[in-house]
């Protein structure tokens, strides 16, 4: 990581830009909106592609069904609303109308995680990864920043699987080296190291770069949560023997559990820690990073955990 302060960019804005570009090239691309058009930054799309912007109002189950029906008719559908509502409200419709019917709807879950900040517990979706990775055929992705989401959505637009894509609300530091590209099922080693493997996704992982330590950290971006890049993860853990998973999500059903099972199945010896929300709700905070401090996900907490894991 270079010493310059990173750019701060909005994932939402970058995604909106990518969708405009995709829709220009693909006349079959539709957006299904669920009453949050301004907030998910789709105003320009809605005026430029009027007939391909389908507004369902605040009705997430219907929106998932409409998306599935459009997909059955051959459209390339992006279902866009807050993650606390989709899949928060419409899981059963996603399961039956989209997954069971084998339709490749792309579900964009905005405002995920504690970073949603002042909107509080109801809007801080901390269960989306658990819900979505449990669904057959569903692929699950969480970009680390605005650069990755741009690359990711261009790839996903061509995918024939249903997918869930997790975004955060605030603008966040851009650290993703664009030259890496995004490949479904691949994670990226953002920094090589030998003492400890640190796995995560989304901006919570970016915080690791702000830590000063003499330990040699191997930082891996698991933005492809399902399919998971098991080879890269196992290779790294074999090398370091220590693993820290950090995620802005409930411990239950998150990446940490997925990776713990992977390590056990591979009979790897490894010291393991999992920083995530521990069976509790979020709450309001004007500075969303205060919530990382409150829930033990701040750089200080990460450093403490690194030191503990490396202590013997």
């Amino acid at each position, binding site marked *: 990581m270079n010493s310059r302060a990173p750019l701060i960019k909005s994932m939402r804005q970058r995604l909106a830009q990518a969708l405009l570009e995709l829709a220009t090239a693909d006349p079959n691309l539709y957006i299904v909106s669920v009453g949050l058009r301004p907030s998910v930054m789709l105003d320009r799309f809605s005026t430029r592609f009027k007939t391909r912007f389908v507004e*369902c109002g605040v009705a997430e189950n219907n929106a998932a069904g409409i998306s*599935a*029906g459009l997909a*059955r*008719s051959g459209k390339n559908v992006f279902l866009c609303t807050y993650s606390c509502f989709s899949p928060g409200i419409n899981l059963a419709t996603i399961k*039956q109308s989209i997954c069971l019917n084998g339709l490749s709807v792309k579900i964009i879950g905005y405002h995920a995680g504690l970073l949603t900040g002042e909107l509080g517990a109801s809007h801080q979706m901390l269960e989306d990864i658990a819900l979505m990775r449990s669904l057959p055929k569903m692929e699950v992705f969480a970009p680390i920043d605005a650069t990755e989401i741009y690359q990711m959505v261009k790839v996903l637009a061509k995918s024939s699987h249903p997918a869930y894509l997790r975004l955060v609300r605030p603008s966040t530091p851009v650290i993703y080296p664009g030259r890496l590209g995004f490949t479904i099922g691949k994670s990226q080693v953002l920094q090589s190291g030998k003492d400890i493997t640190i796995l995560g996704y989304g901006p919570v992982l970016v915080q690791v770069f702000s830590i000063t330590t003499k330990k040699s950290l191997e930082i891996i971006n698991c933005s492809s949560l399902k399919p998971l890049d098991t080879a890269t993860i196992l290779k790294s853990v074999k090398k370091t023997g220590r693993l820290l998973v950090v995620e802005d999500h409930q411990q239950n059903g998150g990446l940490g559990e997925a990776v713990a099972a992977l390590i056990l199945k591979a009979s790897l010896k490894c010291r393991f820690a999992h920083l995530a929300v521990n069976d509790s709700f979020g709450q309001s905070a004007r500075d969303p990073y205060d919530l990382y401090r409150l829930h033990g996900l701040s750089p200080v907490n990460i450093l403490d955990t690194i030191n503990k894991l490396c202590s013997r």
Partner: protein
Amino acid sequence: MNIFGGKPHPLSVTAQDLRLSILEMINTASGGHIGGSLSSVEIMVALYFSDVFNFNRDHFILSAGHLCPTLYAILAKLGKIKLGELSTFSDIDSRLEGHASVSVPGIEYSSGSLGQGLSFASGLALGDKLHHTVCLTTDGEHDEGQIWEAIMFANKYHQGNLINIVDYNGQQIGGTTATIMPLGELAGKYLHFGWTVQTVDGHSLSALIKAIKIAKASTIYPAAIIAKTVMGKGISFMENDYHYHDVKKLPISLYLQAKDELSRSSY
């Protein structure tokens, strides 16, 4: 015998054949949703055996997936699947799932979780404006809020190519729909939500075919057809008894009685 003395509709033979198939299918499988399957027979016969729609191009979405025995029997009659396959209904190696499944040729939507199909049909109708999409729901299914979300959506998008037929048999698994969750004036509700509505005798093939022709002619408004039916239609001891929403294997005497009644029915 037709007590009103009118000539039975030529397709009533088909309907009664299907009822026998449904009874055999469910009894062989030792279980299935027989009540609604029997009440929906004429509705699906009117859709598949009249010349109003061509479901190689138009779309049929069975929202109430538990009525699949009727659809499976129809697809067998149409040669989409083999007649002999019906005896595999709901078995481990069968593609004839206990609720409608796209693994069966001719089925466009896997269903079972109630209240979702009208949204799917509406999305499909929006994506394919050159053809009609016909959805079959039930009255009990209207307990689900999602149905009303879809009803509002279809009005907003002026979906003249969308038709929703409600198999209104007045029963659901735990009692009458009136006691479980009263729907009130369903036709009036559809009207106020911006749909055209017809209420018809759901066992009269001529009334049903006339209604779907009228519904098809609607170019601006989505069209609802409320088909008043009898749950368990054709088997006297099942009719209007919610305990026959679904059955396990029938005692042999009841099975024979049911078969006898269906075989002797009026043409």
